[in-house]
């Protein structure tokens, strides 16, 4: 039976004010103004899994669990966008995709938060991620044993190789026919994208210095897929994709999850995980439509990413767990890691116009696989395409320009070219998330994030800047300068391991302390590697979904 058409106009159409996923339907992300049917559960119905967060971890796991037949409710604090009608080609407007709630950032090298490394939307930060989809180097899963630094993961790279494949298929990754580094991998599902000038510059620099490069495996379509068109190279990728070429969680795993019977609740902020007399989790307290509610569940999955996940576990402290949930090791909120994101910039005689096409179409992982270095860990570097606001702010913050020098430099916007790393920082206990005294709009203590680099981090950065500068000199770039202080992706804060004394969850993302509490996002990373983490987060979520199914069959849940 069809609903009266007037319903649509009667509701507020601002998805930041009024939830869209309700009344048995969710937004159809592929059609303006349209809906898809969605199963719904009552708060007092005990569902198999309630999942906190719908990004790369939670959204992917919601899909896997629903497809395995479990009842699933997934909550997200952010709105439920329809990209085709809600997204502008505009940097300012699209800051609406970021998590901008109050946070304190401190330490010797305080992090910039709230933009590229955050997301508040159904689909999480994948709604605006740069789509770079890379596999870990196999040795990184045993970096302590094999490479002498960091911590071993409790996962086997050969098993992960299969899950990487599953994610690459699910997102129709566009990539090269043969990948130059690591063990053989199957061909990418979709063909690689053509190189823009910024990517050609990277390739020329690598060839001049005698190292390999390749087209970046990237989660934007190079051929049609269902109702989504191929990428049109508009270049606003990190401000959200308004054509649905970007294979975010919002347009991939979430529609699958809903089709398989999962319920998504937007604008639903979880404030506390509840535990019962037996010490097990019983559900979550969440704020939606102006009031606090409680969803009962047999299992709770926390998937809020490396700041909100520890924050929620710490904010859920109760008399039985005074130090917060899942925290008998004392490691919740510790060993937070970012990735180094330094760059070298220069100017070409030719027009580059790096605002066209996805920003990072070419990559070299050479220094991830070459161990002849005087520091631990590795880095990749990629071509860049900053939009005007970001570029002007980079000139201000990192190059110290304002006044006439800034205006003069901005005249060369169409000629600038840059190389930027994603570099491995080492896990340190002192880096992490604690609770501050200030409260947010829900009355919850806000997080305090502390970050300081170690000597190895500085050595890695120095090596990368020297090398990238050589690469730009080799292609006759002029007015070369270094952006020395920038970081990107967050990981860690609730790491996985083999030993309950030194980790928060086991290999299945299951809390050692509370066996029906799971953590499934980037916070489980023991080390961070030298590649963008989203593919690995999704691969772990796929594995966790399969493991839960196996455990359920064996009666081990």
């Amino acid at each position, binding site marked *: 039976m069809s609903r009266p058409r007037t319903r649509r106009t009667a509701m507020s159409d601002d998805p930041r004010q009024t939830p869209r996923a309700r009344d048995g339907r969710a937004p159809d992300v592929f059609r303006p103004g349209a809906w898809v049917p969605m199963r719904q559960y009552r708060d007092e119905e005990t569902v198999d899994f309630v999942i906190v967060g719908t990004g790369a971890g939670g959204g992917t796991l919601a899909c896997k669990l629903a497809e395995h037949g479990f009842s699933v409710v997934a909550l997200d604090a952010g709105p439920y966008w329809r990209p085709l009608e809600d*997204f502008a*080609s505009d940097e300012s407007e699209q800051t609406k995709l970021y998590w901008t709630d109050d946070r304190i950032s401190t330490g010797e090298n305080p*992090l910039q938060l709230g933009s590229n490394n955050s997301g508040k939307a159904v689909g999480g930060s994948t709604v605006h991620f740069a789509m770079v989809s890379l596999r870990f180097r196999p040795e990184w899963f045993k970096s302590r044993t094999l490479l002498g630094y960091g911590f071993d993961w409790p996962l086997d790279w050969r098993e992960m190789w299969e899950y990487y494949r599953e994610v690459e298929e699910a997102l129709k990754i566009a990539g090269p026919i043969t990948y130059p580094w690591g063990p053989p991998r199957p061909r990418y599902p979709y063909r690689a994208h053509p190189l823009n000038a910024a990517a050609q510059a990277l390739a020329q620099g690598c060839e001049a210095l005698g190292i390999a490069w390749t087209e970046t495996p990237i989660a934007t379509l190079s051929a049609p897929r269902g109702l989504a068109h191929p990428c049109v190279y508009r270049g606003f990728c990190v401000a959200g994709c308004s054509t649905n070429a970007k294979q975010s969680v919002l347009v991939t795993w979430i529609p699958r999850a809903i089709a398989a019977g999962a319920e998504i609740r937007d604008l639903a902020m979880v404030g506390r995980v509840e535990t019962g007399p037996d010490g097990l989790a019983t559900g979550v307290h969440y704020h939606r439509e102006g009031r606090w509610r409680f969803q009962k569940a047999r299992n709770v999955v926390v998937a809020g990413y490396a700041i909100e996940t520890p924050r929620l576990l710490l904010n859920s402290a109760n008399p039985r767990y005074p130090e917060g949930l899942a925290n008998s090791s004392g490691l919740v909120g510790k060993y937070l890691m970012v990735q180094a994101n330094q760059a070298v910039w220069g100017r070409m005689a030719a027009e580059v116009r790096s605002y066209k096409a996805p920003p990072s179409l070419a990559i070299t992982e050479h220094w991830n696989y070459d161990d002849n270095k005087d520091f631990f860990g590795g880095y990749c570097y990629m071509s860049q395409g900053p939009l005007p606001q970001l570029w002007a702010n980079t000139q201000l913050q990192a190059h110290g320009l304002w*006044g006439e020098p800034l205006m003069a430099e901005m005249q060369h916007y169409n000629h600038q070219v840059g190389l930027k790393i994603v570099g491995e920082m080492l896990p340190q206990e002192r880096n992490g998330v604690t609770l501050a005294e200030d409260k947010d709009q829900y009355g919850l203590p806000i997080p305090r994030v502390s970050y300081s680099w170690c000597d190895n981090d500085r050595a890695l950065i120095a090596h990368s800047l020297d090398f990238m500068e050589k690469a730009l000199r080799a292609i006759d770039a002029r007015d070369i300068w270094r952006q020395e202080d920038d970081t990107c992706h967050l990981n860690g804060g609730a790491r996985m391991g083999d030993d309950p004394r030194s980790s928060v969850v086991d290999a299945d993302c299951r809390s050692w302390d509370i066996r029906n509490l799971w953590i499934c996002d980037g916070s489980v990373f023991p080390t961070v590697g030298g590649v963008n983490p989203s593919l690995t987060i999704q691969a772990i979520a796929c594995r966790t979904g399969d493991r839960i199914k196996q455990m359920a069959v064996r009666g081990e849940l």
Partner: protein
Amino acid sequence: MPEPGRFPGYDVLRKRHTPSWNEKTRQVINERLAVPRDPRILTAHEFATVTAIADRLVPQPRSRPPIPVAALIDEKLFKGQEDGFRGEDMPREREAWQRGLAALDAEARERHGTEFLHLTGNQQDALLKQMEKGELTGAAWGGMPSEAFFKQRMAKDIVFAYYAHPTAWSEIGFGGPASPRGYVRLGYDERDPWEAAEVKDGDVEAAHQKNRHVG
């Protein structure tokens, strides 16, 4: 000095009704162009001070209507749009702006006996440079580091406001909004007909001709 007119005749707004601008983009940019010119959060004096600071940080040619930087910042404060993080010693955005502007005036009065607004350009620049280096430490800062206010709040907000405006996009030859049409030609020195043409070999007229047909 900037090279005025590197993209003669290029106006990104001419693409407003082409397939490069979707409906949402038109709506958002229309609202920005119509930003209220009277402050709603800042006082008239604060508003004038922000304009004076912006004149030093992002100086504008007198040959065109100015980008309303102070109005865009007032709008941001009015809407309560925040960055999502702050240093331990930093207040939230409105308070940071209000305290920082008052402290800047206090420093100006102490050195020159008058408010920042009434200083010469060179005096203003000297004070801003001291702020940037964290050398302003008067009581009016209330413990907020002046370099943090400069980098994380004041200069950042001003630069973001300036480059949020289509006039700034035209000035640097940026293609501007690009959905759903996007781009076709991606290589070195490859220009789609709906992109800015820059002056080559001093031939202003040739660039002007091309830019007249952008759309």
